[in-house]
C-alpha cells in the first residue's frame, strides 16, 4: 500500500539576524535581504519526512517562483529526502495574488498526479506551511486545496494514517479570540490537504523509526549534492495554463497603495524616564510591586 505526498513550499526573505536588512523607515530592504526556504515551509517538509519514515511515502516538493527558488527546493530536499522537485517558473507567473498562485499550483499538482502515479490513487496528501512570512495571508494553501477538490485542514499539530482504510486522523489547534484554545481531533478519508501549525513537531519514538530517520537523512544529504538531477521545471505551456488565468492578469486583487501606518493616536501619555537614573528606576520597582500586591501601600 503505497503513499504519495506532495509538499508546497516557498522561498522567502530570511528574517534571521545578520541576513535581514531594514530600510531606515523600518521596512524590509528586499535587495539586501537574503532568501531561503520559509520557516513554515520547512515545517511542512518535516511532516512529509514523517510520512516517509513511518509510511514509506514517495515525496515530491513543488514551488512557484523565480528560477532562484530552486534553493528552496534543495533545502526542502535536505529536510524530507524528496524524490522529485518541481519548479513552476515563468515570467508571466510574477506578481500573482493567492488565487492566481493557487491556479498554477493546482495545475502543477495535477501534472504530478499524471506523471508519477500509474499504480495508485494519485497524490494522497499535500502538505503546506501555515503561511508565508512575507505575505502572511495563509490563503494559498486552502485555495489550492479547494481548486483540487481536496478537503483542507489547517493548524494541524499531529497526524496518523491508516493506510489499509486510507484514512487520516489528525489534530488541529483552533485559536479563537476570547476563548480557550481547542484541540480538535478529526478523521477524514484520503486524499487531504494539510497545512501544518507552526508548533508541529514530528516525533520518532520507536527504535526502528529512529533508525529509518537516520538512514533517510543520510540519503537526503547525498541527494542534495546533486539536487538538480531531481529537478523538473515547468512553465505555463508545460502546465497547460491560460496566461489570462495566472500572474497579474489572473489576479482578482491588486495592491493599490502602500503607506506608512500613521502613528496611532496617543492612547497613553507616557512618563519618560532616564534609564540611567537609579532613583527613578527605584520608583518604578516600587510601583510594580505595589500594583502586583507584593508590597504594602503603607
Amino acid at each position, binding site marked *: 500500500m503505497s503513499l504519495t505526498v506532495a509538499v508546497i513550499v516557498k522561498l522567502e526573505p530570511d528574517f534571521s539576524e545578520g541576513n535581514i536588512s531594514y530600510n531606515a523607515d523600518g521596512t524590509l530592504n528586499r535587495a539586501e535581504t537574503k532568501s531561503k526556504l520559509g520557516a513554515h515551509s520547512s515545517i511542512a517538509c518535516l511532516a512529509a519526512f514523517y510520512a516517509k519514515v513511518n509510511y514509506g511515502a514517495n515525496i515530491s516538493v513543488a514551488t512557484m517562483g523565480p528560477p532562484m527558488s530552486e534553493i528552496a527546493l534543495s533545502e526542502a530536499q535536505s529536510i524530507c529526502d524528496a524524490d522529485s522537485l518541481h519548479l513552476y517558473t515563468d515570467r508571466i507567473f510574477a506578481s500573482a495574488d493567492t488565487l492566481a498562485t493557487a491556479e498554477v499550483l493546482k495545475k502543477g499538482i495535477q501534472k504530478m498526479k499524471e506523471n508519477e502515479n500509474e499504480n495508485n490513487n494519485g497524490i494522497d496528501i499535500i502538505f503546506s506551511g501555515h503561511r508565508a*512570512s*512575507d505575505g502572511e495571508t495563509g490563503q494559498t494553501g486552502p485555495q489550492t486545496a479547494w481548486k483540487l477538490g481536496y478537503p483542507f485542514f489547517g493548524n494541524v499539530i499531529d497526524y496518523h494514517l491508516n493506510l489499509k482504510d486510507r484514512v487520516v486522523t489528525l489534530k488541529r489547534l*483552533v485559536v479563537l479570540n*476570547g476563548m480557550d484554545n481547542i484541540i480538535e481531533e478529526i478523521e477524514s478519508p484520503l486524499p487531504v490537504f494539510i497545512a501544518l501549525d507552526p508548533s508541529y513537531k514530528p516525533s520518532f519514538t520507536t527504535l526502528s523509526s529512529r533508525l529509518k530517520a537516520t538512514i533517510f537523512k543520510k540519503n537526503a544529504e547525498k541527494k542534495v549534492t546533486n539536487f538538480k538531477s531531481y529537478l523538473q521545471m515547468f512553465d505555463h505551456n508545460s502546465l497547460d495554463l491560460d496566461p489570462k488565468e495566472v500572474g497579474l492578469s489572473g489576479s482578482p*486583487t491588486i495592491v493599490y497603495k502602500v503607506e*506608512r501606518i500613521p502613528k*496611532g493616536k496617543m492612547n497613553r501619555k507616557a512618563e519618560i524616564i532616564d534609564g540611567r537614573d537609579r532613583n527613578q528606576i527605584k520608583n518604578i520597582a516600587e510601583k510594580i510591586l505595589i500594583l502586583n500586591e*507584593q508590597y504594602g501601600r503603607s
Partner: protein
Amino acid sequence: MIENKKLSDLENGNNSNSYHHMLVIIEVVNGVVLPVNYEMLGEARRLMDFFNKQYNSNEKVIAVVLGQNIKDLCNELIYYGADVVVYADDPNLRYMVNQTSTKVISSIAMDKDIIAKISPDFVNHYKKPRYMFFAADSIGRHLSATVLAELDSGLASDVNKLEISDLEIKHQHKTKGNALKYGKVLEMYRPDFSGFLWTTILCLDNKNPEIRRDFHPQACSIIPGAFAPLEPDPKRKGQLIEYTPKFDQKDLKIKILNRSIDKDKIDFDSFKIVISFGKGIKEFPEDNIKLIETLSKLTGAEIGISLPLSKKIFKLDEKINSKYMIPGRVIGTSGRKITPKIYIAIGISGAVQHIEGMKEAEFVIAINTDENAPIINECDVFIKGRMEDVLPVLIEEIKRIISPLEVKAKRK
C-alpha cells in the same frame, strides 16, 4: 471611446446589476457568538449606511450563521446591526468543518431564492454578493480562502481599516493601461508583516476587453479587536431566513472525533504581570533573556514575545528556543490578546499587531532605546535606555524592596 465610456460607468463591475449586499460570515463556537462577529457587524453597518446614502440605494447587511440549535442567536445579530440573518441549522453543521461550511456558505451567497426574499428588485440579474466579511482567526482565515476560491474572487486577509469609494484606476491588465473609473470599491487596508506599512488591497473586475473577468464579491478577513461593535439595540427589527443546506455524502465522512481544551496553552490570564521581549534583545540575546527570567521570577510574571521572535531569528540554545521562541507566547493579532495588571514591553517597538494584543493592560511599562518607537504612545512609563543597563538596576531595586524574610523563606 464609446467602448471606454461604456466600461467606465460608475461601478466596479462589468455587470452592475449582478452584485448586491454585504455578507458577514458569523462564527458560533460551543453555542457562543465570538466577539469579532459583533465587531464585523458594526463595521458592516457603518459602511452600508454610508453606501446606501452615497448611492441612494438599499443594500443590506446580511449575517450568515451555520450551526446546530442556533436560531436563538439570530435576533442578537440584528440588535448588533444586521438587516437580515440567513441561518442554516443542521446537526452536520454543529462544528465548523471547512469542507462542508465552504459549500453551504457559497451556495447561500449564490442563492436567488434568498435574494428574492430580501430584495425582489435585484433577483433577476443577481449573481454574487458585493462585499463579504470573515473573521481573521483559525476558522475564518481558512474559510475565507476556500469560499473565495469557490466564488472565484479576491480576498484581502487581516484587514483593520475599510472604506468604500470611487476610484480612477490605471492598470496594465485590469484596464489595459487606460484610466477607468471604478465605483463602490472596497478599500481594504492591511498592516504588513513589519507592522509599519499599510497595504491597501482592492479586488477589481477586469475591464480589459481581452481578459474580461468579474471578481465579486470583494472580500476580506478582519482582525479581531480592530473595529468597535455597536451598542446592541433590542428594538432593531430585521428579517430571519432559514436555509436548508444540502450535503455531499463524501464530505460527511469527515468526522470530528473529539474536541478538548488545549492544556498546553500558556495561561497568561492568571498572571497579574506579563513581561514581553522583542527584537531589542539582539545585542546579547541569551544574557538578556536571563535577566528577563530573573525579573519574571521575582515578580511572578509570565513571559511573552513579539511575533518576529517566534520565527527564531536569533541563533540560540535549543532549550531557550523551544521554551520561548514559540507561537504560543506571541502577544498580538497573530497570537494572544491579554489584559494583565502590568505589562512590561522590553525591546519591543510596538507594531500595530503587537499593540492589538496588549492595549487593554492596566499599566504598561516600556524599556526601549528609541523614543520614536510607537510603543511610547501605548505605555504609561517609558524607560529610555538599554535593557542591558536598565534591567540589572530594576532587578536590584526590586530585590532590595521585597522583604528579606520572604526571600529567606523561599530559599527554605
